């Protein structure tokens, strides 16, 4: 079962400015690309780096430590040195403009 956790107002999340939040006790990185929001587990699968410190480009986030790329939508690996996908979470925006992340 998915529980939805409030992580902030929609306006808190801007293009080019990944944000670190917490949802259900898990560290989550939120990314905005134009009108869409994405949520990934906020820890690289390759080393001790937070994806909320990464650079967003072409639908991917670039890890700040070794520049590995993860797909924002799915968490799939898009480049070396990564080998393991990162968990992605569903995101929704409520009628009142709040952002919620779903954690199972």
């Amino acid at each position: 079962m998915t529980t939805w956790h409030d992580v902030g107002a929609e306006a808190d999340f801007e293009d080019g400015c990944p944000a670190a939040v917490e949802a259900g006790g898990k560290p989550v990185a939120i990314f905005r690309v134009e009108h869409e929001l994405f949520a990934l587990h906020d820890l690289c699968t390759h080393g001790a780096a937070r994806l909320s410190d990464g650079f967003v480009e072409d639908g991917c986030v670039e890890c700040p430590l070794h520049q590995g790329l993860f797909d924002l939508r799915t968490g799939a690996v898009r480049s070396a040195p990564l080998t393991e996908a990162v968990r992605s979470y569903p995101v929704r925006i409520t009628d009142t403009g709040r952002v919620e992340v779903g954690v199972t």
Partner: protein
Amino acid sequence: MSGAAVTLLPSGRQFVVADGETVLDAALRAGIALPYQCRSGECGNCRSQCVAGQLEHRPGSTPTALTADDITGGARLLCCATASGTVTLECREVDGIAGIPLRRATARVTAIERAADDIAVLSLELPDGQALEYRAGQYLEVILRDRSRRSYSMATAAVTGGTRRLELHVRHRPGGTFTDHVFGKLKVREMLRIEGPFGTFCLDDRSDKPILLLATGTGFAPVQAILEEAWQQNLQRPITLYWGGRTPADLYRDADCRRWAAERPGLRYVPVLSGDAPDNWDGRRGRVQQAVLDDHPDLTGHEVYACGSSAMIDAARSTLCSERGLPTSAFFADAFIASA
């Protein structure tokens, strides 16, 4: 034969230059810390003297920091030069830079201060656990989305072991890709991709000569870092800072400089305005290099560090060396290419 074997004097260090590669790139690849800054023939930092063999500026390069006489005399700019066969050359090597790791990182914008209409002071922070080591006077490159790069000098000194917080001074060049972004859409919390440090515009640690710092515009950024580093190290050499701009707003940290000069016995500050100065202006008028010429009949015992527009650097280099006896080896420059 492909490639060239180069021997550096006075150190005797040797390295190989591949076909088509510049001598500077080959030396840096071999881990030899040669002085350089602009990598495009403007600043003159990579000047060397050819002692034996074939060392030529490659076709299409623009070694503007040398005169025709310099070149006839055997001087070459290593960022423009290729080598063939066996070459011996004389070139200064830089202390205290070899061994600083080049690093790629993301940096978050934590503050954007408008120090003047066309000057933004950016505060950046690297992620937790990451740090950048550098010497004052070095610069970093911001990597843009199209993979092109723009250089900005660190404006504060690093702390030992590396620094997470960086300061950059950016002048707006209308029509410029990156600076239009900085003055338009850039937000606090945005991420930039950076790589650094680069360059060798750093105080020569082996010298105890009095120091003249010359800056125009945001050429003040590395100069501020150099001052901070000198204070950190409790440097005893007298320092005079000449900072030039057109209008008072161009000297965007004028008040700080005046305060430092009042507080620090070793520091003198000379602000210089070339354009409209207010009636009550108590600084100098004209060009920075002219102010230096006026103040110093003899510069044989000084070191000059000049940073800013290439016009100022070229003028300062030629007049201070030819008219005041400043040794060319005591003139260090950091050219921002497009006029700073």
